[in-house]
């Protein structure tokens, strides 16, 4: 059978769900069988996303491999999937992390394995679905579906002390944003429908609809809130340190690597193209918030005593960069922003794995309990070092390329923002290296650390693929930038065109109003005569 004719995107989305359904019927006692099934299906999912990459036409900016089925025709809801240069690598990243998290949790999770694996698999479906939906309703469904497994991951397998607080905080924050977004989606749907006569949730059709500016502002704010909470942007970030710290290792990995990207992806796919005028008008304050996030996140990370919390705060800082680049609205900035989403996924995901590995051995996350670990775990030290440097943005590793492009793009439009943001890179070096130094170097003072075992094969297999990509992106980013470029250019053009169209429409309205006024005046003048 011809591979290209398969509904690849549907496969990517639903393979994990199939595994989840199969697991429902596997007996509770067969834990390793369940893990194997989950792993195999995650690998299949990875293979399917690799096939998507293989068949992806890098020179085209259009939505590819689109699938379309009518779902609820009365409301113009369809099952519409598609992928372009913007979502391609996010899908690949999600696919790559699928098997990694299953492997990483192999020895970690011993309690209610079945539910754990099902949650991970359903989560995978939700995340993939968000990245490939081209229908606002479908997108919203996947968006909410994601919430439940993540809630369970934090609340059931999290750190017993504060997991309930963290879980409910995560849910409430997310729900606030997404429900208001739902209202905005509905208003957009009704507005576009009543103007064009065709009621539809089809994203590509809604792209075409010029939303009046006053409405754009409100709808953009609703979308902004939903996505800014997810990113998370300062000051909506307070759920993140709690959720990250209390979640089990793989929960933090998925949360950092993929879930946070939902927010930034939401901006680039939905909020900005749908409401370009409001988005561009908001540039300055969003950039200010991003900047605060970068610097504040870095400062707070510096004073953390808990490794996991430190990495969590570094996410706030890194995602500030992503937002900054996106709102530069030029090719470099936006490409850097997308690349940085991937980079953050790889390196922060990896750092959470690293923290998880050492936590599994020592059951503490406090920096002061460690010191001199590199003597007992040399291999671990190597991996840790690579990811630390990647997170800092050392040239030759992935973080550098993304941050560099973002700073370059930002500098072109707002030099001062770029200058201030660059300090974030310096602070990153400070908090990461300082943490690394305190954990890995120095004398082995704590006797409990002496007998620590180095990485086993499973852990190496978990970390190695991430290292490959970290280096690959750092050394030859073109593999990743090329397929993005047409889509990014199209995105920018689309924003420009739509913005102009809306302005035209507004001035057209004003013009006709003016004409009418003039006519009335001349008429009344004529009457007077």
């Amino acid at each position: 059978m011809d591979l290209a004719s398969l509904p690849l995107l549907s496969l990517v989305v639903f393979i994990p769900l199939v595994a989840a359904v199969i697991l429902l019927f596997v007996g509770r006692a067969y834990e390793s069988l369940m893990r194997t099934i989950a792993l195999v299906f995650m690998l299949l999912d990875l293979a399917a996303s690799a096939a998507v990459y293989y068949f992806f036409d890098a020179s085209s900016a259009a939505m590819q491999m689109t699938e379309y089925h009518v779902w609820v025709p009365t409301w113009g809801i369809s099952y519409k999937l598609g992928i372009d240069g913007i979502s391609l690598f996010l899908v690949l990243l999600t696919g790559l992390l699928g098997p990694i998290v299953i492997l990483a949790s192999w020895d970690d999770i011993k309690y209610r394995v079945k539910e754990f694996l099902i949650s991970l698999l359903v989560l995978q479906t939700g995340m993939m679905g968000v990245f490939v939906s081209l229908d606002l309703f479908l997108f919203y469904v996947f968006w909410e579906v994601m919430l439940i497994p993540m809630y369970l991951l934090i609340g059931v397998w999290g750190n017993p002390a504060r997991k309930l607080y963290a879980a409910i905080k995560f849910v409430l924050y997310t729900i606030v944003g997404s429900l208001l977004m739902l209202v905005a989606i509905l208003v957009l749907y009704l507005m576009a429908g009543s103007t064009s006569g065709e009621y539809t949730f089809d994203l590509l059709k809604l792209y075409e609809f010029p939303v009046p500016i006053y409405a754009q502002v409100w709808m953009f704010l609703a979308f902004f809130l939903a996505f800014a909470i997810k990113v998370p942007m300062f000051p909506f970030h307070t759920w993140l340190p709690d959720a990250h710290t209390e979640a089990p290792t793989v929960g933090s990995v998925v949360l950092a690597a993929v879930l946070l990207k939902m927010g930034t992806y939401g901006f680039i796919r939905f909020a900005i193209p749908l409401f370009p005028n409001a988005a561009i008008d908001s540039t300055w304050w969003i950039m200010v918030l991003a900047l605060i996030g970068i610097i504040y996140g870095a400062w707070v990370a510096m004073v953390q005593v808990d490794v996991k919390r430190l990495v969590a705060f570094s996410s706030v800082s890194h995602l500030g960069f992503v937002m900054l680049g996106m709102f530069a609205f030029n090719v470099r900035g936006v490409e850097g922003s997308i690349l940085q989403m991937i980079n953050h996924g790889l390196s922060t995901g990896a750092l959470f794995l690293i923290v998880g590995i050492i936590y599994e051995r020592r059951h503490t996350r406090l920096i002061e309990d460690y010191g001199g670990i590199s003597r007992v775990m040399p291999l671990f030290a190597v991996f840790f070092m690579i990811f630390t440097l990647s997170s800092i943005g050392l040239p030759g590793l992935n973080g550098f390329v993304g941050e560099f492009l973002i700073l370059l793009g930002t500098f072109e439009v707002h030099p001062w923002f770029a200058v201030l943001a660059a300090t974030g890179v310096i602070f990153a070096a400070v908090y990461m290296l300082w943490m690394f130094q305190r954990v890995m170097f120095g004398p082995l003072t704590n006797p409990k650390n002496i007998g620590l075992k180095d990485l086993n094969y499973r852990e190496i297999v978990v970390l190695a693929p991430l290292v490959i990509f970290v280096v690959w992106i750092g050394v030859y980013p073109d593999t990743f930038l090329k397929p993005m470029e047409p889509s990014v250019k199209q995105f920018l053009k689309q924003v420009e065109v739509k913005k102009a169209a809306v302005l035209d429409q507004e001035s057209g309205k004003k013009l006709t109003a003016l004409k009418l006024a003039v006519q009335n005046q001349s008429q009344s003048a004529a009457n007077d005569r």
Partner: protein
Amino acid sequence: MISLPEIAFAGILPELLLCAAGMVILVVGWFVRRSVLAMSCAVSIAGIVAALIANYPLRFTQNSAFSNMLAVDAYSWFLNIVILIAAALTILMSVRYLEDEGIEMYEYFVLVLFAAAGMMFMVGGNHILMIYIGLETLSISIYILVGGLPESIKSKEAAMKYLILGGFASGMFLYGAALLFGAAGTLTLSGIAKYFLAGQVSLLAKAGMGLLLVGFCFKISAVPFHMWTPDVYDGAPTPLTAFMSVGVKAAAFAAFVRVFFEALSQFQVNWTQVLWVLAVLTMILGNVAALVQENIKRMLAYSSIAHAGYILIGMIAGGKAGLSGVLYYLLAYTFTNLGAFGIVALVGRKGEARIMLEDYRGLGNSNPLLAVAMAIFMFSLAGIPPTAGFIGKFTIFSAALAQGYIWLVIIAVLTSMVSVFYYFRVIMKMYMEAPETQPAALQFSPATAAALIISTAGVLYIGLFPTTYLGLALESVKPLF
């Protein structure tokens, strides 16, 4: 010679079949000594299935029976189905419950069937007195059922409260009807509509309209007429609470919509404003009060108040979209709430000893399937996709937005955010908190299992593939316009 009006039994065949089944149980129950509950259950279910079949032709008709007392149309058809489903699921869940409580009372089933018939008369009522008779039939049956737990003082207290307050509300309703009759000279809905259309509306009629509104709001438990709800829901036998929260609500909403849209649509602008305020109060009070409940029955009682608020939004939006939203929501809510209460009944066990939220600790461990079902019901109540509850909220909100009620929808959305907290608390208890003592696995009876499977499947199925049901709801509101 007095000419008798034409008697069209075909129009009330479903109701007649229910009553007949009730009578059969009454007679046979006297003779059967052993397994009287199983017999009653079987006969009731048979009666309900027969009624469902007899109900089918209503979908395609649009006329009235008994000199315009009863409407026989698609609107009745849809709501009859909702009521019959509610009755069937209630009966399936009740057998086990009654066995546990040691109540060998076949009258219980008879009363449930009679109440359902009353609800159906209320739904079909084309004349205010007809609606009143339906209302009283169902109310009186339910007053008795609420007090049905012989050993429980709480149950007696609930029955007493419900009787007094319900009687008061019925009085209001009847008084309103009398005033309307005084003004319009008729109580048929079309007659009242004609009177209002003619223009000269007296103060009497307006007062009558207000009193009718109060009567209905009492039955749907909208704030500030909700005071009875938590106590009565808490005190009543749990399967019956489920029936009340779904069936009574559906019937009351159905009649509410029919009266106000057929007879009083001339005044829509005025009563919509009143409903706006009531809906906002209902949603806020219902959800906020539910937050602090430790007793799950009380929590679900407040949640059902809150849901009345959401359904009111559909009425406020009006039009085909809003009203079909109301119907769909009622269907979705039927499956969801019956399922949730079914589990509450099951977990409650003998004497309803375990109805606190604390008792749900560790349910995910001891009864994984039950916990999954409960989680699905909670997600549906909270309006999280892909469940029926989400589609219900979605329909109603989009209808209201289309009519420009943007603030109403924003308030609704914010209050449903509040609701997420207490619905998720149940899930938290089930999955995330370790119990002090490991609870034993609960025993299902086949009937209970069937009821829960049907509700779960219903919630998921009409949530994932809502098209057909939305279409049906849309068809069913056509007779009102």
